[in-house]
């Protein structure tokens, strides 16, 4: 039987039939002419027929959708047979262009026009490009790009998923995700964990899996098998039973011997926050504020920001909410803050550093946070991303103090901040380890690159050592609010891996923050070990010569993982 080994990024054991995600539609060559013997009239008629069928397809999907999704699909359907788009394509056809090239160019100019209008219109520019690609696919007689529409559940196999695919991914139909590319921190992994879908990434060769073939996916082991065995069928059946019990977290993160490790949620807005509170999150360990800023040409007003922040704080009255100030740059560019032409954006002006080049934005954000804080009952902590030195931490703390924010902190993502955590923490009240970036910087490996997936895991002993150094520095630096060492949390994807969560607890991390879907699994596993056992496992992982061995050694000592299929 044919098997594929990749990297497991979201647990779950499931059997289902494969649907390949169609390849993106390639651009028709520039200057492509009408084929011999085809009149412009025929080509225009063909284009109109293709546009009509794309319209009908999208309209049909709109009819079964609801809410915002329905409105977007209805508008997109209308774009497919839009007279402005089709007339300008017809003009190009009459000048001798092929139908494919004509609609491609017409779509590009309309999309550019919308993009230049900014705001809501700019967001619709990508819809025009999507419609254009669908019409070209229809003309070529190949499947439409994007996640296949289907009523029967399937396992989606793709090269990698883009953030935009999340909108069209229906978790009621997609059973699991398998990609040939991507790494543990790729968008596919993040999407899968937030939806609670089993997922395997960087599984070479899965692009050749035939549609409708039956496969077994183990999202913890990173394993995909064609023609599942009886044993695998039993494992999938057992998972279906245990996963129900893993769906609920009792709201009490603790080890078996009562060492408390509050389990918090990572959220990106009020909707996430409400969902996380319902799943038992003991607070928010990472509130990403980018949602307020992304896809904007100008900075949102203080009023607008304050209202958005308050909506999140209000979901956790009396509980801790750790807010991260704007983290723009690298994979999250913002036209009014970041320079898109930087040769090396991951090492560029991003995170806290945008305050060097565009001062004022951060101060206004802190003002909005302070206002929302004063109007809500949450215990609001505020941290800056991408802090590298104690001086930066000190400056951030004074900006917070000036705004009236009581608890300033820093993200530890840059190895320099981990190595000097004692002096960094002298300046602020707490630290939170962003393990995704910390791993990428410690290993010098781009998060999005499939070939570097093995380097890009927080199981790397070097990354665990940086976590340990940060905790040791915090202990040296003495007391936080309660007289204990200043708190050091983890808010990266690492905290969502139950085995790694045990290791992090053993290293002395005080809180773990993760996508809310993972709370129950992490909480369940944490309760099976004592603090001393967790410390023993942390020493074991640190002593491993490789990430693979660190993971295997720790997992071997946690048989509960295998029992639960995690």
């Amino acid at each position: 039987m044919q098997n594929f080994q990749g990297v497991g990024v979201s647990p779950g054991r499931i059997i289902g039939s494969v649907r390949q995600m169609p390849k993106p539609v390639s651009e028709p060559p520039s200057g492509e002419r009408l084929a011999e013997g085809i009149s412009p009239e025929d080509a225009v008629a063909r284009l109109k027929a293709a546009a009509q069928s794309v319209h009908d397809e999208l309209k049909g999907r709109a009819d079964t959708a609801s809410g915002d999704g329905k409105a977007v699909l209805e508008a997109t359907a209308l774009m497919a047979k839009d007279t402005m788009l089709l007339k300008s394509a017809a003009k190009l056809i009459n000048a001798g262009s092929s139908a494919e090239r004509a609609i491609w160019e017409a779509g590009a100019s309309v999309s550019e026009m919308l993009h230049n209008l900014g705001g809501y219109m700019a967001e619709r520019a990508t819809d025009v490009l999507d419609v254009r690609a669908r019409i070209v696919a229809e003309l070529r007689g190949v499947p439409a790009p994007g996640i296949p529409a289907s009523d029967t559940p399937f396992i989606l196999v793709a090269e990698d998923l883009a953030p935009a695919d999340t909108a069209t991914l229906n978790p009621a139909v997609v059973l699991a995700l398998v990609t040939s590319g991507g790494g543990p921190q790729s968008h596919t992994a993040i999407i899968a964990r937030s939806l609670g879908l089993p997922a395997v990434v960087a599984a070479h060769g899965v692009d050749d899996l035939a549609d409708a073939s039956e496969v077994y996916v183990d999202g913890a082991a990173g394993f995909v098998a064609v023609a599942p065995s009886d044993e695998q069928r039993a494992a999938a059946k057992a998972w279906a039973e245990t996963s129900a019990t893993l769906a609920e977290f009792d709201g009490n993160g603790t080890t078996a011997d009562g060492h408390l490790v509050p389990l918090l949620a990572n959220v990106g807005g009020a909707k996430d926050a409400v969902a996380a509170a319902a799943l038992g999150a003991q607070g928010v360990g990472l509130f990403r504020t980018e949602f307020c800023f992304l896809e904007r040409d100008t900075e949102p007003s203080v009023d607008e920001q304050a209202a958005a922040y308050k909506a999140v704080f209000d979901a956790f009255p009396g509980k801790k909410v750790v807010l991260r100030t704007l983290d723009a740059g690298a994979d999250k560019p913002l036209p009014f803050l970041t320079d898109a032409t930087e040769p090396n954006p991951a090492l560029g002006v991003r995170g806290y550093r945008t305050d060097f080049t565009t001062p004022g934005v951060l101060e206004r954000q802190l003002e909005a946070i302070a206002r929302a804080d004063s109007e809500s009952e949450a215990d609001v902590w505020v941290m800056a991303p991408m802090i590298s030195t104690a001086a930066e931490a000190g400056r951030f703390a004074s900006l917070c103090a000036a705004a009236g924010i009581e608890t300033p902190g820093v993200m530890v993502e840059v190895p320099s901040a981990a190595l000097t955590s004692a002096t960094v923490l002298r300046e602020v009240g707490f630290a939170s380890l962003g393990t995704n970036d910390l791993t990428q910087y410690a290993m010098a490996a781009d998060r999005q690159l499939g070939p570097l997936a093995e380097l890009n895991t927080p199981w790397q002993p070097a990354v665990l050592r940086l976590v340990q150094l940060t905790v040791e520095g915090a202990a040296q630096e003495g007391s936080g609010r309660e007289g204990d060492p200043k708190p050091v949390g983890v808010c990266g994807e690492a905290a969502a891996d139950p085995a790694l969560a045990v290791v992090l607890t053993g290293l002395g991390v005080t809180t773990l923050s993760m996508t809310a879907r993972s709370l129950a699994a992490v909480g369940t596993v944490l309760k099976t070990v004592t603090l001393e056992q967790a410390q023993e496992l942390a020493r074991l992982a640190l002593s491993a010569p490789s990430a693979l061995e660190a993971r295997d050694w720790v997992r071997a000592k946690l048989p509960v993982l295998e029992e639960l299929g995690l």
Partner: protein
Amino acid sequence: MPERTATIASRSGLHARPAALFAEAAGEQPVEVTISMQGEPADDALDAASILSLMTLGAAKGDVVVLRAEGDGAEAALDALVKLLETDLDAE
């Protein structure tokens, strides 16, 4: 040529859902209807049935637009479309 003016009533302007509803209604009329901002030449008027044209027009709430149509049923078509523009479609 028969024409009407209308003041955009939808909160989000002639974007998003209101634009889609209006374009669809314009496309169902027996005559071709054009739309332009008040004060702009009739020659620059856009096809009212084109959602992309409506979006590039960028009419906001409170803006006044001019609808034009010719032929049998033009008057009735214009009346129906004016009524739609002057309804807050976001509220529905």
